[in-house]
């Protein structure tokens, strides 16, 4: 009898030991990066079949995958997969508000400008009551394609869709500024600041805030480079020249870590990451 009891206690101790060991191993393992959430994309028709033939359900299921991805740790390959997913969602349900919102605020910063614009243009048609998709197409034209005139055209389309007179006035002012002054990094940074301010609190907002911060830094570098050229009659050969000349206290820190560099003509730009 005591032997049987001992055997039972031993069995319980072994099982508890295995459980404790498994937990300790799992506790030391790092959380998997964003890649697995986005890696697999299935053809559109397959997505519909897996959703009981319901394209809206397929759009939502793909949308949840996009929403749970950690934007802060995405690689270019992740951005490419997310772009495909978001184009799929846009095709399944072009009026999906979360989809166009994320496509506007994340995809172009990861180099997926065409995909972002495609999602946005479909949303412009599918959401006649919403001025934001047209605004984002305008911003893509202005900032990512460096086409202020085309951007202003889209901002005027957004102004026509806006219901609130204050929104209409604000959009018309932006369009007039872009048409008159052309592209300006500081203006782009201010707009991204405004987008971040209107974003829900959390990782998504801080993602946009980082983008705005590095645009402000780039704007400061460009202004310093302009003053340098006026002072010396030629462009700086390296960024440290701007610090040495007293135009900047230090080279600004890039919040996403890629840093800044000069083009051959001496214009400060982002280093590609």
């Amino acid at each position: 009898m005591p032997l049987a009891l001992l055997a039972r206690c031993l069995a319980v101790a072994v099982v508890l030991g295995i459980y404790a060991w498994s937990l300790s191993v799992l506790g030391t393992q790092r959380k998997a990066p964003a890649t697995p959430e986005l890696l697999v994309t299935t053809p559109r028709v397959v997505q519909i079949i897996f959703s009981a033939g319901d394209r809206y359900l397929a759009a939502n299921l793909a949308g949840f995958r996009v929403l749970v991805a950690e934007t802060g740790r995405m690689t270019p390959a992740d951005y490419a997969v997310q772009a495909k997913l978001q184009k799929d969602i846009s095709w399944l349900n072009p009026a999906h508000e979360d989809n166009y919102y994320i496509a506007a605020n994340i995809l172009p910063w990861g180099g997926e400008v065409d995909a972002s614009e495609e999602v946005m243009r479909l949303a412009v048609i599918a959401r006649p009551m919403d001025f934001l998709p047209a605004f984002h197409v305008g911003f893509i034209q202005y900032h990512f394609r460096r086409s202020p005139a085309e951007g202003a055209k889209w901002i005027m389309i957004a102004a026509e869709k806006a219901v609130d007179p204050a929104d209409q006035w604000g959009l018309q002012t932006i369009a007039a500024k872009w048409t008159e002054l052309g592209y300006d990094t500081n203006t782009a940074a201010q707009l991204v600041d405004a987008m971040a301010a209107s974003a829900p609190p959390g990782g998504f907002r801080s993602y946009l805030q980082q983008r705005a911060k590095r645009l402000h830094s780039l704007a400061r570098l460009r202004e310093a480079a302009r003053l340098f050229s006026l002072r010396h009659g030629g462009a700086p050969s390296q960024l440290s020249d701007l610090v040495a000349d007293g135009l900047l206290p230090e080279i600004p820190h890039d919040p996403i870590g890629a840093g800044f560099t000069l083009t051959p003509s001496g214009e400060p730009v982002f280093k590609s990451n």
Partner: protein
Amino acid sequence: MLQFWISGLRAGLRGKSIHSVLLMGVALLFVAYLSGSFSPRQPRTVALDMGLSGVRITLVLLNLFWIQELLAKEIDRKSVLFSLTYPVSRPAYLLGRYLSVLTMSALATVVFGLALLIAVALSGGGYQQDFPVNLGLPLVATLAGQLVDVSVVAAFALCISTVSSVPVMSIATGLAFALGGKALGATMDYLGAGADNDQQLVATYGPLIEGIRWVLPDLSRLDWRNWPMYGAPLQSDAVTASLAMAGAYALIMLGLASWAIRRREFS
């Protein structure tokens, strides 16, 4: 016919599998409520969207189980012979059963519609969407569209039951029909837009889908959720044509079922 309608209602509300599907419907609506919290901009729209998908799946399953319970199993167990001893025609028996399923389907739509209303109202907490969902007439119209949609599925399953010797056949083919009919519109869109530049796919499946669309109704045409979700108004001519398509298809199925049951030997 009236007695078949009433007995159908009784039998339909008794089945254990039906109770399971009803519970599944409630679970799907709870999932819809939870799914709203994933959305940063439109929690109520997402909850409504997911909920409508859940209601459609539940209604399809309920209709198929009802058809199986009220007709396919009766035929399989030969208990249909007791029903047919009444001095009424076989098509009247069939129609009575179909009307029972339609009635229970309408009741289920009302119940799930109310549950969906509560789930959507509770989702999103205090967040005010820029574009609120419309839970009035647009939602009622959308649910009515889903009811018409599943009525066509039920008519198809009924027709299969009259010719099949295996009760589960009506569920299996009914599910395939519900999925195919719902996916047909999107598939035609996909092929029509060039299938991501896959010319071979278009060449292979284009003619096939072009043929299928004449025998399989495009049930996605009865999905009007863009109205409550995005305020996109319905186009009256498209709605009329969709309802005519659904009604005519259901009548054809009922006609075929009546023809088949008249000629079927049960002994």
